[in-house]
């Protein structure tokens, strides 16, 4: 390798700095885009919030296969076994949705901080 070609090759540290800068800039651009889109995001969330308020919705509509996965906060206590006392959970979502926590006695007060 000639000294001229060595001199024209960028240094390793320059390459490392350039690639880091490229990645940071790309990430920065994504973050900036998220910040710029914030008013639209807020407006979208507000419309969902208004709908939930008007209809009195209590839970996200993610898993519709059973009562206790569609409305975990409204389901019976120990509802995973509601269809049979020792019945195993039927639905895949059952392994993803936790049992409600902090309901205490089932009446208010027990679970309150």
């Amino acid at each position, binding site marked *: 390798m000639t000294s001229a070609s060595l001199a024209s090759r960028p240094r*390793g*540290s320059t390459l*490392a700095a350039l*690639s*880091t800068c490229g*990645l*940071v800039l790309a*990430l920065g651009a*994504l*973050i900036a885009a*998220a*910040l710029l889109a*914030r008013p639209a*995001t807020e407006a979208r*969330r507000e*419309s*969902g*919030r208004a*709908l*939930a*308020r*008007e*209809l*009195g*919705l*209590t*839970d*996200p*509509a*993610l*898993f*519709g296969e*059973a*009562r206790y*996965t*569609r409305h*975990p*906060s*409204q389901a*019976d*206590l120990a509802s995973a076994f*509601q269809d049979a006392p020792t019945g195993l959970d039927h*639905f*895949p*979502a059952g*392994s*993803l*949705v*936790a*049992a*409600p*926590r*902090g*309901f205490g006695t*089932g*009446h*208010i*007060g027990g*679970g*309150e901080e």
Partner: protein
Amino acid sequence: MGARFERQRHLLDFAVASLARRPAKNLGLTLVYALVVFLLGSVMLFGSAIRREAGVMLADAPEIVAQSMVMGRHDLATGADLEALKGLRGIRRVEPRLWGYLWDSAGAANYTVMVPSPSDAAHALASGEAIVGEGVARARKLAVGKPFFLVSPAGKFLRTRIKAILPQASALVSSDLVLVAEADFRSFFAIPADRYTDFAIEVANPREVSTIAEKASVRLPTYRFVTRADMHRTLEALFSWREGLALALLAASLLAFVILAFDKASGLSAEERREIGILKAIGWETSDVIRMKLWEGTAISGTAFLAGLLAAWVHVFFFSAGLFEPVLKGWSTLWPRFPLSPEVDALEIATLALLTVVPYTAAVVVPIWKTAVTDPDAVMR
């Protein structure tokens, strides 16, 4: 300052050249590392985004929901109990609600059929009209003005016309909703006139919610009272559980990666050991060797972390976490199509860095230090 900077820069030059001498090995390691960051980052970004989204949308859920219980199961609430609650001091309004589930064999999905509140002018419905969520419209290929038929478990037929489709912006909470008029709901499910699914209670002073619920439970001991705080706690538990479960599963892959990194560093190749020996023989200090190797590690972990985070961000916010969809959906046929919006959380990014960069650094530094302090002659032999 300038000399110290130049010294570090030369060390970095040397580290990059050293990495470039073993391109396949280091590129492979960086890719695996970036993949680990990508998986962990996707779970964290998705979990926090969906939790925030649902938290904001359900922030104004009913203050208290009262459910009648019979033999430990949810039962219909009565008009007499409604009057009993209305007379309680501190309660501003009791809204009797009508809602239930319907398995629709045509759409192969469960719908949440609901009657909008009479005070909700935006969703007021006449008999024979229906408003459906985005998921229902998608499953049944519905459009405004089109007819929509439902068949009750008793075989009763309900014929409606679509008045509106709920906006996709609210799909996270409304995807499976079917809103119908009260008269249609009662005749469809054969619910008598003074029976309701439950009551939504609005209290005069929000700080008295638990006191009011306590008083109401004395008046109606067979009822169960679910407060907004309970609902939010359930929501939090639901998403934390899911995120925790996924992270626990991924912890195994993180551990495997740490073992890989440790193995790679502790079993330094003969070439690498000779390189360290030569550097020491020509006058490099132990600290210089460690610094140079640290630069190597920083180059790998920095690149992998940034690339992994970038890919996770694009995966979650541009492709709606498509890789997780089959796991998340389960048997849910009306999985809502909702956009997730990123919220920049420095703590989250710092946690991800802590979970990935620290184990890697810890795994590589010790073996390098052990080699670097050994006598050059012994290392080169």
